[in-house]
């Protein structure tokens, strides 16, 4: 059913993705890990393209490779240099267990579900227009509750971020008070 191009692309992309994913935790340098993580995201997007899921692929690039990775960039750049080492972590044991569990779930689902494979005419008979329209109709029709819950959650996250960074008046007062204290105690007089 699949042409050779798709098969070749699948193997190349999955090889790239798996190697990059391995490198994410084998690299000693956190920044290198981050770069490989982006490569994982891009490889995943490529895999989605080979599955004709164009919207998911583009959303993957937009959200993961474009936004999440920038978030991680800030996270890495704001951590002190000494902790920017990927060498060992407390969470290796739980991480392995959790990862294995997730992989088991995914494999089980992939084997257990009877996948519908429709192409060309069979798809059109079922009223399929394009992925993006189908996703839109499903999101605002059948799964509208989940959609609304997700948007409310995101709104709360946004508000939380704004609340966290808002410069409150009390902060200013305490900062000034500290400055006054520092001025009165005169720590710097002993130095120099």
């Amino acid at each position: 059913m699949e042409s050779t191009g798709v098969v070749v692309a699948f193997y190349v992309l999955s090889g790239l993705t798996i190697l990059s994913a391995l490198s994410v935790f084998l690299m000693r340098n956190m920044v290198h890990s981050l770069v490989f993580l982006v490569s994982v995201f891009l490889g995943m997007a490529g895999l989605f393209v080979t599955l004709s899921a164009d919207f998911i692929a583009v959303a993957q690039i937009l959200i993961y490779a474009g936004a999440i990775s920038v978030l991680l960039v800030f996270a890495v750049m704001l951590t002190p240099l000494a902790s920017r080492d990927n060498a060992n972590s407390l969470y290796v044991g739980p991480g392995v267990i959790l990862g294995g569990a997730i992989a088991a779930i995914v494999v089980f689902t992939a084997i257990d579900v009877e996948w519908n494979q429709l192409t060309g005419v069979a798809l059109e008979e079922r009223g399929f227009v394009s992925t993006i329209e189908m996703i839109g109709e499903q999101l605002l029709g059948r799964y509208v509750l989940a959609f609304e819950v997700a948007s409310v959650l995101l709104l709360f996250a946004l508000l939380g971020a704004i609340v966290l960074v808002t410069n409150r008046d009390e902060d200013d007062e305490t900062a000034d008070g500290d400055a006054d204290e520092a001025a009165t105690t005169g720590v710097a007089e002993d130095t120099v």
Partner: protein
Amino acid sequence: MTDQPLASTPASPPAGQPATPMAREIIARGSLLQDAKNVSVPLKAAGAVAGLVFLTVNAAIAYIVIDGRLDGEWYDFRDLGNAMARLRAELDDTSAGPWLSYWVTGLIGGVGILSFLGGFLLIGSWIERRMLARFQIRVGPDRVGPFGLLQPLADALKLMQKEVLTPIGADKALFLLPPVLVFIPAMLAWGPMPWAPNMSYLDINVGLLYVISITSLSVLAIWMAGWSSNNHYALLGAMRTVAMMVSYEIPISLSLIVVVLLTGSLNLGEIVAWQGEHNVWLGALLPFAMFTFFFSSTAEINRTPNDIAEAESEIVAGFHTEYSGMKAGLFLAVELGNALLVGALLATFFLGGYTAFGLEEWIPPYLILAAKAGFGYFLFIWLRGTLPRFKIDQLMNFAWKYLIPLSIANVLIVAVEASIAARWDVEGIFIYGSFAIVNLALTVFAVRAWAKVIGYTPDLEHPVGPRFASKIGGLEAAREIQGGT
């Protein structure tokens, strides 16, 4: 040597005598035009014949390839898109399978886009420098070739000759990658651009999302460049770029959502076709969205009102401070190419793309798009010659406090309008004309009202005393130095 002609110096040289030895040398060198005039007549004739033969061969090839040898219909050069569609259909019919048509059309389209972009890179920096010189009442590069047209070529040759250095302490692998990586999004984003009906390289349903997502990828390459350079200025520039791009992606996305709401499609070709069908440019319907897109794009591609990422007077050259030779040249080339790309996107989304009120029947549509993209590029040059640079806090405030709230309000308004347009069965010109007037009025009103509510007040923005410095005892030290208590 400066760009200024060495005409008159106060030392009053004898009349008709050049002032300095170097000026004498330059005048004695002779120009390209004189060289061309000195060519003997038979050689000129031979050249003319060769040129004519070359043109004839080209025309014949074009006739055979484009013209209706395929099905007997006449395709002239205006119908390149339809000719390509016909070619693809023919290739699909052959027994070789779909891969042949993909290969052939992909090759033709890729070479076409690359050559357009390459041609622009060859001429773009010359255009920019000459126009900037015009704005600043200078001459600009006018020595290399006729009108200085070969200046970009000379610059490129110079950059190629220069040594490519890697600073000590740089992260070698990460330092190597960014000049290449930054090129990839700049190329890929040209994919879904519709050049004519039936003529876009990637005719995908998620074209608009694709453009947004691909252009957001260049952040990472820039960050990698800044981080791996092991240079404070480079890192500062890179982090500025990252913060700025992340902030300004939101207004860009919001302004493009508005386009999608009105046209009902994410396909760039269908967006342009909608504008052609209704004989309206979306820029007239959505003035605020167009302004937001244009202004935010200047931040995305580091053009002048927002070019703090590589502010020469503050942090040398920003994220590519440590790059030399052709690596730096690649960054500069990407910057140029991105300016044209944003011009083309602006034309596609807001200025009618390849349509121009029926003119596309007479002029090749891809030339119309190229002209509009060039107009966008000219706007960028104009801004660069006119506006000063923003500070980083002004820039961030402008994105988060002005553009994003107003864009959200804009989305709400246009959503209402789109539902009205979908429900009412009125003549398009009335409904869209009223939308244009309403939107313009609302934009002016909203911008003024919002600016009154949270106008930029510098006194509140700046701290009265040094907070951090006082915490670590810097204030005391400063007082001591000043000879105070």
